[in-house]
């Protein structure tokens, strides 16, 4: 019995819907705070930023799943798609807040997408998530076969663009976006670690 067995056993018993519910709890909480002054005197920006940061955190959690299994034997594979979908939901909400609460002016939306590099990067990342979200179901996995795995490597690009989006929008040199980008690049680098060929004992 390995030390990670109890962890893996517990993970097997936790249903994915419980993870969905737990990770979506911040949404009503943030909306409530925004309405009651808990997000400060400019709640739109605060809500937008909070949703974006949660999306980045979920993408980072999703990127941890494979290295956890590979290097530590911890198996959370059944939640990988869950975290991907949750990240997509938060990016989508972040986009909705930007579109309808923050900008709210159609002509300015398009100008911003074309003219502001950080928004262009964010929109590209969202667009790349669409096919991933659409195929995050068992039927698609079966139907696409090996193509599915190749397609879902787009996650790496999405995470990188998300980190870049955050880096580009802050004023001056701030620590937080650098930490996020560091985590993302580190997790991507782990995937470059060569697989050891099995040596017969």
């Amino acid at each position, binding site marked *: 019995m390995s030390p990670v067995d109890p962890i893996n056993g517990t993970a097997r018993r936790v249903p994915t819907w419980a993870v969905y519910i737990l990770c979506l709890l911040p949404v009503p909480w943030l*909306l409530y705070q*925004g*309405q*009651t002054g808990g997000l*400060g*005197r*400019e*709640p*739109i920006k605060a*809500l937008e930023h909070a949703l974006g940061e949660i999306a980045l955190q979920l993408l980072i959690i999703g990127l941890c799943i494979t290295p956890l299994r590979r290097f530590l034997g911890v198996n959370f594979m059944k939640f990988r798609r869950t975290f991907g979908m949750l990240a997509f939901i938060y990016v989508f909400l972040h986009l909705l807040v930007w579109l309808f*609460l923050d*900008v*709210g*002016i159609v002509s*300015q939306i398009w*100008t*911003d997408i074309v003219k*502001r590099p*950080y928004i262009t990067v964010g929109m590209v990342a969202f667009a790349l998530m669409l096919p991933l979200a659409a195929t995050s179901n068992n039927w698609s996995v079966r139907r696409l076969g090996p193509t599915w795995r190749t397609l879902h490597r787009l996650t790496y690009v999405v995470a990188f663009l998300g980190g870049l989006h955050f880096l580009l*929008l802050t004023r*001056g040199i701030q620590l937080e976006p650098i930490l996020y980008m560091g985590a993302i690049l580190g997790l991507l680098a782990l995937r470059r670690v060569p697989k050891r060929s099995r040596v017969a004992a």
Partner: protein
Amino acid sequence: MAYRWKNTLTENDVTPEGVYMNRRQLMAGVAGLGLVGMTGAAQAQGDVLEPSAWDDITGYNNFYEFGTGKEDPARNAHMLTTEPWSVQIDGMVDRPGAYAFEDIMAQMSIEERIYRFRCVEAWSMVIPWNGFELRDLLEMAGVQSGGKYVAFETLLRPEEMPGVSSPVLDWPYVEGLRMDEAVHPLTIMATGIYGKDIPNQNGAPLRLVVPWKYGFKSIKSIVRITVMDEQPLTSWNKSNPREYGFYSNVNPNVDHRRWSQATERVVGGGLFSKRQPTLMFNGYEDEVAGLYEGMDLVKFN
């Protein structure tokens, strides 16, 4: 320019703060049901301006000497000692020296000026200032004929200003105006808001207010005013000349390098407030456009 700027609004037009706050709470209650978004201030030039709430004006500030967060100044500015206070007026003036705040106030006539306030970060408020025209203060010191610019400096007192330990800007904060901007009747030194003494986070005991320029030009807690014959250095221009020009006039057609300046959001409108169009010279085009005749406003941003 020999005319006095006339406020078209009187004391009677300022909603007493108490009434104003009650109405806001009522509105906030309705907004809380998700039915309406509170609308902000004036939509166009000539509309009656609705002053922002005291809590918004004094609770959402940029005053980096007290921290870079919007709520930091309100939290930390109580540390600032504002009495005694004196302003060093020097350079090309007939009567240079340290002018005590009380002596200045004894000679100035305080008026109310309800002005739009537009931050470079694309948010705005309407603030009922109390203060006097800068021109009157300059006349008190006697500007000499060669004086072409006026430089201003904010207090630098690290033991009372937790924000200056970070090198966000090159302290002390400095600003400047061209002489014709400085003596323009719209340019005031503010000493109060809503008829009360100006709170520390808003630049006590006296600050500049130049309503047609982005907020960072309206330098706070002034300790020195220098009349000079060359364009003075200004803090944000030193820190990032591509993003913050010396003039920094509010202009919806000249974007900040990273965001549009075409629209703004009035602070205090809650989750469903809408952006409104930014006005040329922040709505003071009729009064100030003449100052920049023949100047390329993109080049001299």
